[in-house]
């Protein structure tokens, strides 16, 4: 069972990474995956700022390529850190406040379904 879980997880990771790689290298969507919305959001943001840099701000020496990439790294890292803290907090609150086991949750879900029917 656990072996099966690992295989599924590996397939998921491969699809996820292929999506990233192919979108970055070939700029076309070659693999179907779960995350087009995520990738498109990241790519779109970078492309808009890079296009602006290449057409106007780079040639007019407003700021350097190094500054642009650094700003992307700084914003991305801080966004990840903020969400990490948020999700960790939410997760730990969930564990502490819900002391029931999985079977309890199932029973709860069954009762809910029964109520809805």
């Amino acid at each position, binding site marked *: 069972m656990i072996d099966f879980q690992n295989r599924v997880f590996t397939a998921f990771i491969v699809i996820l990474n292929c999506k990233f790689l192919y979108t970055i290298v070939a700029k076309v969507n070659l693999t179907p995956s779960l995350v087009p919305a995520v990738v498109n959001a990241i790519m779109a943001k970078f492309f808009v700022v890079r296009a602006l840099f290449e057409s106007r701000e780079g040639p007019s020496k407003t700021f350097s390529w190094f500054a*642009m990439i650094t700003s992307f790294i700084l914003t991305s890292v801080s966004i990840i850190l903020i969400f990490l803290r948020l999700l960790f907090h939410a997760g730990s609150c969930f564990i502490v406040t819900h002391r029931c086991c999985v079977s309890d949750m199932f029973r709860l879900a069954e009762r809910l379904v029964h109520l809805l029917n």
Partner: protein
Amino acid sequence: MLVDGKPLNSGFQKGTGFVQQNDNHLPTQTVREAIEFSALLRQPREFSKAQKLADVDYIINLLELDDLQDAIIGFPGAGLGVERRKRVTIAVELAAKPDLLLFLDEPTSGLDSAGAASIVRLLRKLANDGQAILCTIHQPSSLLFESFDNLLLLTMGGSMAYFGKIGEKSGRDSHHVRAYFEQNGAPPCPPTANVAEYILELTAGDRSGTVNWNKRWSSSIQAASARQAIEEIKADRLKHPPTHDPREEREFSASLSTQIALTTQRLFVDMYRDAAYPYGVLFSNILVGLVLGLAFQRRPSCSFALRGLLTELLQIWGTE
């Protein structure tokens, strides 16, 4: 090309502004933010921040952007209109303090007649304010054409057909251009006709005939006097002692720390206003967390099993 009788150096790039034909801006910035960003990064670092921000206020006022200063620039079609975007582009370039020259690449293209008139009126205002402006223009109406002081007319292939004053006084007539072409064998221009159209038809249109306007210009009295005037200016400027321009020594006007601080600040504001990327990150974090949690759920939590889990993790990363 010479500036003050000396060849161009790297200071020339910082002393000029180039208003591109397609108005490129970050869609989430407001008008004031875009102008401030340009002023803080492109003006020499010797100026204080207060001085630069005072310049921004002045430029916003000059380009009549007061009521638009907190508007989001947006995309073409969803945001500022074409003429307003053009004004923002001019303001962004002006914020860099182009003390030598402001280039404009077809500023009236794609604008309606009212928009074009408004842009040229603002350029006239800037010129009266002491700003040197160089502008390419196609098919101008006579009103726009007569707003300019001097004309450099290029024929097909880029050779010169006329260089000099348009009229006695800008905004009034185009007497000089008209007189030059009429003296050189062109059919007389009717007084009500658009002089810009008249000379374009003569030099590039069907009525150009056999006259080579480039050769005729080279041998004309007007060309000779223009050349002489340029030589006089060159000799006059060379007499001045060379001025030291600190901008020549640096590649970027602002220091690297200022560049990083301002670009990062801009990107944070951009991410806040257009939050698809942060939400994408949040979404993918939840998704990956869920998948990881499900893949490794119900593992015994002794250290031996943990080691097994670590090797499995490494295997998974290895197979990527």
